[in-house]
């Protein structure tokens, strides 16, 4: 296959669009309600307005106008040409009677005829139009499927020319204003058609003879010429036409014209056909595969028996041009060309396109149906509303055309279904299998089953040799399934991610040109994959996250995926992504549930560490409460075994599980040290605990507070390391912070503790409240802190000597402030009072 790429596709598509529009305009124009005499003109505009055909039951027929007559005058005006005649006729209305001057058998006759409603298209023209559109759609699909291929481009161009030639050039010529323009366009298409044929045959299915000469280094000038010959090939017919025109105009040598072109152009067409068929044969001879050779032979036969009769009939029997016999012998066989081309391309995969026959058949049948509907609709309306103004309305055909357009798609779908069932059972099975696979994936809860579908069933269905699945694990992709030859891990590359995000669906490695130039990492990765036999890859991603990547080898058959296959594959990959994501989420949820259960256990254990009751002997009362911000927390309070009045409350850095673990460690350290010490001196206890926590490393801090009583039982001894200063509520309601030494860093902050114990004399009824910073850091829904001021206020307002009540009041105030929001930090309160 020729692989040269030219960026002509947009231009060609535009040309095709124009050609399609012109053809449509030409056909639409034929149905516009205009006053019409019923004359179909011959195409040779140089020889006056020759009547080729008279429409039955028309005004012309009634007045006795006959084929072969020449219309000299209409409406008391001598007419120069068809557009002039059209202008005159447009000055009349349907039903008017008009005087004609007609030359017949060398004499002039005047006829008076009644103008009717225009209707010049007949069954044979509908056939021609269907043929033209069949050509066009076949060409369009070839181009769309293989846009970069020069052969496709030339084939498409040839099909567009065929469309114009058939629809415009073979249009039954009337006097319509656009007749001349349409016929000129048709003539231009006709002139260029032999060139397009020759050019196509030189390239199709590949320019083997040219390549052979090139490779052998033989006939270099010939090769050079043919490489650049196409411009000349297209210029030649125009030059011949111009020369013929110039000779006839300037030298007065008039050569015979046939169908608005000099007969030399016809001979050129015949020559180009012969040369083209020779090139085709030469290409076929150099093709090794007999399957391809058979395809080329079919194209050759299609051209010979499709075009041959038309050219021969036109050249040898010009007088029959436009007759029914010409239509049957010359025009009808033209259908062989698109049909044989399409069949050869499909059957023998000459252009690696298999949908063409399906599409061409589909569009031919649909076009025929739509055309039939249109014609039938018009005929029916004409019959039913013969005398109605509706039929004469200019809007009538437009509305009818819109209705047909609306009907087009449903009709096409139905036809598609029938054709698929009848001709493409294998394809239908493939599509069914892919749909089934998609449904199976949707139903899968087990990611392993989805993975199996992706790497085992999908390659089987689509004919890939293998597929592999890589799932994301952190910053790399891990091979979850696939051949062992492939790397176990692949790095996650941002450039590749962005590229795949944009280029959804299957991305061929050989279509990543610009990315490979931009990113050496991607280039390297692609190189590695290619060496392992990977030819394409597809992204697996859901809306929430990227899941991984599927790699595909080449297909067993050479053809790339077709459009509908690609769409199905994309849909399948989306379903696989969803299924995999669901599986992963399920897995994560299970792990989460297990973790939560363990945390609950931890919380229960932690709760058991907190004593149910605290007591300080010697007329002291104590109350405490602790609320973790999460299920488990880093705050605690406890009563040391020795001395009997010692109470410690703590707050470790971190919350939740990590906080809880450090809390447990601190709690355990305090208890074990207390047990180990002969005499428990709080400052010494804190120093030792500091050393142990500091030794844990990882910048873990534990803020502690200590309450005990003096030996006389009248003073409160306290030690604060990293905790907020405890508050003292005097009997008169004043609240003040207890004095603290300079060094009061939390445990674990510095290796050297140097903690200092303090004392304060308390009057009976006075209260001391120790608290962790979770109290002041509690936040309202608006984000405000509870703060020290509010705490002071609550303590001051609480006129009680009961530490339980004080703790309850403070907790109540915090709850009211946070209004049910989760605590920002664990919270601990310890209140102590001296009884009377």
């Amino acid at each position, binding site marked *: 296959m020729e692989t040269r790429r030219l960026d002509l596709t947009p231009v060609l598509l535009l040309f095709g669009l124009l050609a399609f529009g012109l053809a449509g305009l030409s056909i639409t124009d034929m149905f516009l309600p205009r006053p019409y005499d019923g004359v179909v003109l011959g195409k040779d505009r140089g020889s006056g307005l020759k009547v080729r055909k008279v429409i039955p039951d028309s005004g012309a027929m009634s007045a006795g106008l006959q084929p072969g007559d020449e219309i*000299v005058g209409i409406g008391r*005006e001598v007419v120069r040409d068809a557009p002039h005649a059209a202008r005159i006729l447009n000055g009349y209305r349907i039903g008017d009677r008009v005087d004609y001057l007609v030359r017949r058998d060398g004499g*002039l006759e005047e006829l008076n005829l009644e103008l009717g409603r225009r209707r010049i298209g007949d069954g044979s023209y509908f056939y021609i139009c269907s043929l033209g559109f069949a050509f066009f759609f076949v060409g369009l699909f070839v181009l769309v499927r293989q846009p970069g291929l020069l052969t496709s481009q030339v084939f498409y161009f040839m099909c567009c020319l065929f469309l114009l030639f058939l629809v415009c050039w073979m249009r039954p010529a009337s006097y319509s204003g656009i007749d001349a323009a349409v016929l000129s366009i048709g003539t231009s298409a006709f002139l260029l058609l032999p060139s397009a044929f020759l050019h196509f045959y030189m390239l199709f299915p590949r320019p083997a003879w040219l390549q052979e000469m090139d490779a052998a280094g033989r006939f270099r000038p010939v090769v050079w010429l043919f490489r650049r010959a196409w411009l000349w090939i297209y210029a030649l017919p125009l030059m011949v036409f111009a020369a013929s025109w110039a000779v006839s105009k300037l030298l007065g040598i008039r050569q015979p014209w046939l169908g608005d072109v000099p007969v030399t152009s016809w001979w050129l067409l015949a020559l180009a056909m012969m040369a083209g068929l020779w090139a085709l044969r030469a290409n076929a001879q150099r093709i090794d595969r007999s399957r391809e050779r058979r395809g080329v032979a079919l194209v050759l036969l299609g051209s010979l028996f499709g075009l041959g009769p038309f050219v021969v009939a036109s050249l040898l029997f010009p007088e029959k041009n436009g007759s029914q016999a010409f239509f049957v012998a010359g025009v009808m066989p033209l259908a062989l060309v698109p049909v044989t081309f399409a069949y050869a391309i499909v059957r023998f995969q000459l252009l690696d396109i298999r949908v063409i026959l399906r599409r061409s058949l589909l569009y031919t049948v649909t076009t025929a149906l739509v055309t039939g509907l249109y014609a039938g609709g018009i005929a029916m309306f004409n019959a039913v509303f013969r005398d109605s103004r509706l039929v004469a309305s200019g809007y009538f055909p437009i509305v009818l055309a819109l209705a047909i357009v609306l009907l087009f798609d449903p009709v096409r779908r139905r036809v598609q279904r029938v054709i698929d069932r009848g001709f493409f059972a294998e394809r239908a099975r493939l599509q069914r299998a892919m749909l089934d696979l998609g449904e199976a994936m949707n139903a899968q809860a087990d990611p392993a089953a989805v993975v199996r579908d992706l790497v085992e069933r999908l390659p089987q269905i689509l004919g890939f040799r293998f597929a592999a699945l890589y799932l994301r694990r952190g910053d790399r992709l891990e091979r979850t399934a696939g051949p062992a030859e492939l790397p176990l891990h692949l790095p996650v590359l941002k450039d590749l991610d962005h590229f795949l995000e944009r280029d959804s669906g299957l991305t061929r490695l050989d279509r990543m040109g610009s990315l490979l130039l931009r990113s050496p990492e991607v280039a390297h990765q692609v190189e590695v994959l290619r060496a392992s036999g990977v030819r394409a890859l597809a992204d697996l991603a859901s809306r929430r996250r990227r899941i991984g990547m599927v790699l595909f080898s080449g297909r067993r058959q050479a053809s790339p995926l077709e459009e509908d296959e690609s769409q199905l594959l994309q849909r399948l990959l989306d379903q696989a992504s969803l299924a995999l994501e669901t599986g992963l989420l399920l897995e994560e949820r299970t792990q989460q549930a297990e973790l939560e259960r363990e945390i609950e256990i931890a919380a229960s254990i932690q709760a058991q560490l907190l004593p149910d009751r605290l007591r300080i002997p010697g007329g002291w009362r104590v109350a405490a409460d602790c609320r973790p911000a999460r299920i488990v927390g880093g705050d605690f309070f406890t009563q040391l075994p020795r001395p009997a009045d010692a109470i410690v409350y703590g707050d470790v850095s971190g919350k939740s599980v990590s906080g809880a673990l450090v809390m447990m460690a601190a709690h355990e350290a305090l208890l074990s040290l207390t047990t180990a010490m002969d005499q428990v001196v709080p400052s010494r206890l804190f120093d030792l605990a500091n050393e142990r926590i500091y030794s844990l490393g990882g910048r873990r801090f534990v803020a502690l507070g200590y309450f005990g009583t003096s030996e006389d039982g009248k003073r409160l001894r306290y030690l604060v390391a990293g905790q907020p200063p405890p508050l003292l509520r005097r009997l008169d309601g004043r609240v003040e912070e207890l004095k603290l030494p300079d060094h009061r860093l939390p445990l674990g902050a510095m290796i050297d503790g140097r903690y200092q114990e303090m004392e304060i004399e308390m009057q009976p009824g006075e209260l001391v409240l120790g608290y962790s910073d979770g109290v002041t850091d509690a936040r309202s829904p608006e984000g405000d802190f509870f703060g020290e001021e509010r705490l002071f206020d609550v303590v001051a307002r609480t006129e009680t000597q009961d530490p339980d009540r004080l703790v309850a009041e403070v907790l109540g105030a915090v709850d009211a402030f946070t209004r049910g929001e989760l605590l920002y930090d664990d919270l601990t309160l310890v209140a102590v009072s001296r009884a009377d």
Partner: protein
Amino acid sequence: MRKTWWWISMVGVATTVALGVAGYALWSFQDEPAPWTTRSPKALEAFDEGIWNLSRFYFRDAVVQFERALELDPDFPMARLHLALLHEEGDPERDRLMEGLATVNAEGMTEMERWLLTYWLTRHGGDVEGARTFLVGYLEGRPDDAYARFTLCGDRWMAQDWDAADACYRKLIEMHPNWVLAQSRLGYIAMARGRFDEAEEHFLTYRYIAPDQAAPYGSLGQLLTIRGRYDEARDSLGEALAQKGDYCEAHVSRVRLSLMAADFDGADQAIDQLEGTPGCGFLVERGYVCDLRAWRAYLAGRTGEARKRVAVCRQDRSFASLLIHRMAAMGGDLAAAEAEEALAAEALASTDETDPAALLNEAILLHLQGVRTMVLGDWGKAAELLESADRLNNYWGLERAIFKLFNRLNLIYCLERAGRDGEAEALREQVEAVNPRYLEDYRLPDLEALAGGGW
């Protein structure tokens, strides 16, 4: 930013299109300026009416309208010019009118008026070639000026340069296929050259384009008369008169048709109608009607009556009469016949040899001499003279065509008498190809008498 440019471009395009449409609308609704310069709208109206009549060959009506236009605006140069052109060359009135134009200030005139004036004044000054050169030069600069081309074609036409006139008119109808005067002229040129089918096609086209005009029916009637299709000719002439009852050319053609068809009663009626048509009084005055009656009598074999009539017709005439000469010659009054020939010779001598009329005058002289020689029994010499006359003559118009056929009739007689039966037969076939009924219907009593041994 890109969007802004897009909008600017769109607005620019829309503005350009709108301005273009508005400009075109203004241009197309603008009244075309009148090509004729006059300060009087009524004079312009009358002038336009005159041109309309002119285009239909209604010359007398055109004269009336141009005169009226000139009365309304005595300084209307184009009315003066067109009125002058409707008078024959040499007519003092034409000279007077043209002289009035010589002093006209061309400033403020339209381009068309200026070239018309220049051309016709030059021509009137006798410099026909100079006028023609001027017109050709003007057309080189403006090849699409149809009226100038029509004038040039008229110049060729007047010079009876049929080839040039034919090419010129064809070019004109390529540009304007509905220019009826060109169709008419092409018909007459074809008729003059004996291409009767082609002439008929032009006249039919003319009739098709202008079915409300009398001229195409009249022209077609003449042609059909020449071709011997008398019934069709009669219908066509009848239609011409139905279109315009005072169309004198059609009346005259009807008389000639009846005479050709030997329908003498019909001829009488036609002559009566002609005489009774108010607009055709000038034909009576000029003696044409009298001539027709004399011919009618002659062809009907009423020689005496014919002789009396020609004696009173155009008593002070200065040109030769075929009938007077013929009756004189046949009656043996050779001196009278020679006197007629002298008149013909005088007419020939007074005609410039470049004047197309010279050929006709020469043909008349040769014919007269041929007839006299025939009476003398010198068949060979007579045939030679009549052959020469035949070569100089053509079928332009019914009157001239009748003369040509009449001359050929005499020639056939002479050839037969001279024993040149083959040539006589060939000529007979030629005449029959033109008019298969002519030799059968058009029987000359004097020739029959001569054939019988004496007149």
